[in-house]
């Protein structure tokens, strides 16, 4: 209940407003305003928790990772470069990378999360859907990944979404490790070519 009180009800902002509010809070955090962190937490916790939970597959681990993400963010807010990425895109990447680090260095099993892990959300809370990463960019990566054959596409996405290693992917597909590496590396070469082509004016 405390979380719901803390995250007081407010009208759901539009995507643009949410982005602007987040950008503003990130700027204030970089200047050392500690209260900005709570605003950032309120706006992004659901999305970032979704990411750490998906990667780590364990509620407690995912919550620990989430804590690390925000404490680290407070210590390193000046690392964010607004010219390079939108705040939510950067935060989401940051959270996923932290979760992957934890997965690789710890003893967490990782993998998909059972539905029973999911705690219900208060109605007014999920701003996550208002804080989507840039839609145009989303359409482009989608278009490019679709140019790959289905098998390669599936494995690349499994690596991203579930944090699988080459060895895990190879085992699941029942192919030699070298084969899996070749599939994915060729896929990544083609993905890069497609994305770069889309960047040319």
């Amino acid at each position: 209940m405390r979380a719901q009180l803390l995250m007081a009800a407010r009208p759901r902002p539009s995507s643009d407003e949410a982005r602007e509010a987040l950008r503003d809070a990130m700027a204030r955090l970089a200047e050392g305003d500690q209260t900005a962190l709570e605003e950032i937490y309120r706006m992004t916790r659901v999305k970032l928790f979704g990411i750490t939970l998906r990667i780590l597959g364990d509620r407690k681990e995912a919550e620990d990772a989430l804590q690390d993400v925000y404490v680290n963010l407070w210590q390193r807010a000046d690392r964010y470069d607004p010219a390079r990425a939108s705040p939510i895109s950067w935060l989401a990447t940051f959270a996923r990378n932290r979760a992957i680090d934890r997965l690789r260095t710890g003893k967490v099993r990782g993998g998909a999360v059972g539905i029973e892990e999911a705690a219900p959300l208060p109605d007014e809370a999920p701003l996550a859907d208002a804080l989507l990463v840039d839609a145009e960019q989303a359409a482009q990566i989608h278009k490019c990944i679709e140019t790959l054959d289905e098998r390669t596409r599936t494995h690349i996405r499994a690596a991203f979404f579930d944090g699988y290693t080459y060895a895990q992917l190879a085992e699941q597909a029942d192919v030699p490790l070298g084969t899996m590496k070749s599939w994915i590396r060729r896929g990544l070469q083609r993905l890069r070519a497609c994305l770069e082509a889309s960047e040319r004016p």
Partner: protein
Amino acid sequence: MSAPEDTGPEATRDDPVIAAEWALGLLEGEELLAARGKYATDPDFAWRKEWWDNWFAPWTDDMAGAVEPGAHVWDGIAARLTTQTGIANAPNATSGGEVVALKARLRRWQWAAGLTSAAAAVALALLVLNPAGVQAPNTQPAQIAAAPMIATVPIGETGLRLDVTYIPEGERMLIAAIGLAPDGVHDHELWLVPDDGSAAKSLGVVAPGEVRSMEVPAEVVAELHDGSRLLLTREPLGGKPADAEAGPVVAEGAFIRV
């Protein structure tokens, strides 16, 4: 199983592909450490890693479940912020002017070395609370002017690094391994490399996720100076066995005087 990707030569694995593998989270062990090292030293590689991160970021939209983290998560974050800023804000052990001077100096180290806040807070606490480290208000600030030295040993991007601070007052060294997590199989051992080419001197096993303060043996103090090199090696649990060679070097850094 006869898609076009089955045939053809071995896929080339250039830097952009390695950056993509890292962005996806596919790299492990030595390859992961190598990629992190390259990120720190090769701007093109760093640019490419962020390029992939940025392109993959929209996929995180599909990951977000409608799941609320527990209320204790924010409480924990708030508590950690309070602890860290609390140490830095509440020292009463010495006169006000001295504390202000210490804080200002600490701030400069932090800027100079990008020292983590937790390490800086502990350094300040040591300086302020350790009687050997701080003289009474009426003495000349001669000792305190002896500048600390800092080494940053980056072993990754986000938070994965060591901050090593040597404080001449009291001959203490602070080793902050904030971003490191134990893997249950290895420990990391820190070494000082003497200038004369003799064997590296162990500074001990690093405690992952902690800031530790240690007294520095006289033989190590004698070797310490601006530019002294540090190495981090990966060892079996407990550190390098007496009868074995040191493990692979996974990171290095050098002291700078601030």
